[in-house]
């Protein structure tokens, strides 16, 4: 039983990262119509940002949680302003190719300087150790990652679905021309939206640094799974991304316990099944 709970926890942790990443992808896709293949590289940059902050300036984890998403978000906004914005109105394929190329370049640069092995990033003192829940031992940091990710995901959901700012975002996703004709600076909103999505990816990177170490290619594997999550959840649905992210993490964890051989493929098998039955994804609106 201990092993089952342990795998469930691993599943929830992975689910947290899936949810944060697919949420950003969904927001970006909705507003920019771009399938952001650079998302994994930006997630990696978040982790590296935390690493640099600590090792160059001695700035610790808590500040990194704030600074890294902002810094990488700004980097993302520069990418949007200088490159992605020229793709408006073109086929999805262009955005996909451009962001894929960007991911290769960013990852290549980091790999050039830091190799492929992991750099250590220590768990902050306040979150060290663990607690015995009776049925299992819970490392505090892992519990923190799950709870904090849930809070961030639902805060993002609230921002988009329940606030005035979110109403602009939803409206501009539907009909950017008209929203602009009402006096809203839509191009600036698009840039900020990309920054928000990228910031969420960087935040996931910081959260993962103490668990998975900091590696130039850390985003490469996870992003493939995250795309499967997005396809299953339905492109462009906020709540769908969050729930599917956590659910697939848990399903993966359970598979590791019951049938470990399939644990790396279960997400993709599910993706194929969902695509066969409901091509728009579980919660997707028709494109």
């Amino acid at each position: 039983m201990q092993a089952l709970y342990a795998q469930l926890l691993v599943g929830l942790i992975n689910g947290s990262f899936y949810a944060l990443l697919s949420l950003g992808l969904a927001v970006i896709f909705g507003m920019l119509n771009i399938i952001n293949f650079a998302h994994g590289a930006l997630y990696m940059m978040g982790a590296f940002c935390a690493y640099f902050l600590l090792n160059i300036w001695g700035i610790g984890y808590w500040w990194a949680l704030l600074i890294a998403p902002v810094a990488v978000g700004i980097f993302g906004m520069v990418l949007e302003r200088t490159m992605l914005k020229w793709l408006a109105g073109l086929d999805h394929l262009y955005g996909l190719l451009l962001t894929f190329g960007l991911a290769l370049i960013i990852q290549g640069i980091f790999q050039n300087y830091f190799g492929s092995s992991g750099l250590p990033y220590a768990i902050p003192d306040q979150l060290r150790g663990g607690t015995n829940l009776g049925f299992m031992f819970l490392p505090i940091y892992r519990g923190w990652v799950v709870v904090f990710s849930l809070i961030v995901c639902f805060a993002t959901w609230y921002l988009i679905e329940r606030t005035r700012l979110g109403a602009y975002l939803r409206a501009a996703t539907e009909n950017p021309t008209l929203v602009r004709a009402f006096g809203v600076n839509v191009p600036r909103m698009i840039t900020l939206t990309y920054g928000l999505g990228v910031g969420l990816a960087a935040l996931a990177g910081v959260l993962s640094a103490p668990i998975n170490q900091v590696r130039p290619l850390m985003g490469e594997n996870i992003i493939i799974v995250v795309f499967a999550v997005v396809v299953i959840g339905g492109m462009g649905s906020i709540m769908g991304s969050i729930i599917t992210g956590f659910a697939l993490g848990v399903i993966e964890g359970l598979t590791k316990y019951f049938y470990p051989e399939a644990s790396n493929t279960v997400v993709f098998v599910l993706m194929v099944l969902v695509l066969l039955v409901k091509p728009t994804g579980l919660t997707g609106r028709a494109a």
Partner: protein
Amino acid sequence: MADARMAGAAAAPSASSAPVLSVQNLQAWYGESHILHGLDFEVSPGEVVTLLGRNGAGKTTTLKSVMGIIGKRTGSVRFDGKEIIRASSDRIARMGIAFCPEERGIFASLDVRENLLLPPTVRNGGLSMDQIFELFPNLKERLSSQGTKLSGGEQQMLAIGRILRTGARFLMLDEPTEGLAPVIIQQIGQTIKRLKNEGFTILLVEQNFRFAATVADRYYIVEHGKIIDGFANAELQANMDKLHTYLGV
């Protein structure tokens, strides 16, 4: 509605006859196709001016060009004395032009309240929510419905209501009566008259000139992307034969 703030705003446009909107040699293209071939017209403060013309004559394109939505446009559009032919549509909106598109543009992912609150305030003196509900009582009961679940008439009321909130005093309404029941057309006509009395300036596009005749001060006839004729409402009877030829009715 007879509210001091609105009455004050109504008095604001000076008695001078300087046009609030002045369009000269306006040309516009959709991709490769040349739609507007040099339009000239003017709208004075407090007027209701109607663009009449057949389908495809370029009426909607004219409104969209003034609003800055059509990408390629040349010529001159002056609003309140300022050249806006090169301005982006968000800037044009913030200068005080509000646009109600033909397809109404109600957002499906927003409820009625969010739709109403969506257009940002561009200046003081817009209608309050209560004043909008007084004009369109139906909206008040449907505030939490999804925007596109409303009937066609209610959607049109929502589309007009939401731009009245912004404080813009120059409204462009693209075929507000299209596809609506007579009783609703009547209600929209009364609304337009009331807005005119309160000093709003309105540029209207209509196919239905019987409706236009109940609200308009002046008409321009648009054909093949040009203004081919224009007359005041008082001259409508005298121009009836011409009008029938122009509109092919």
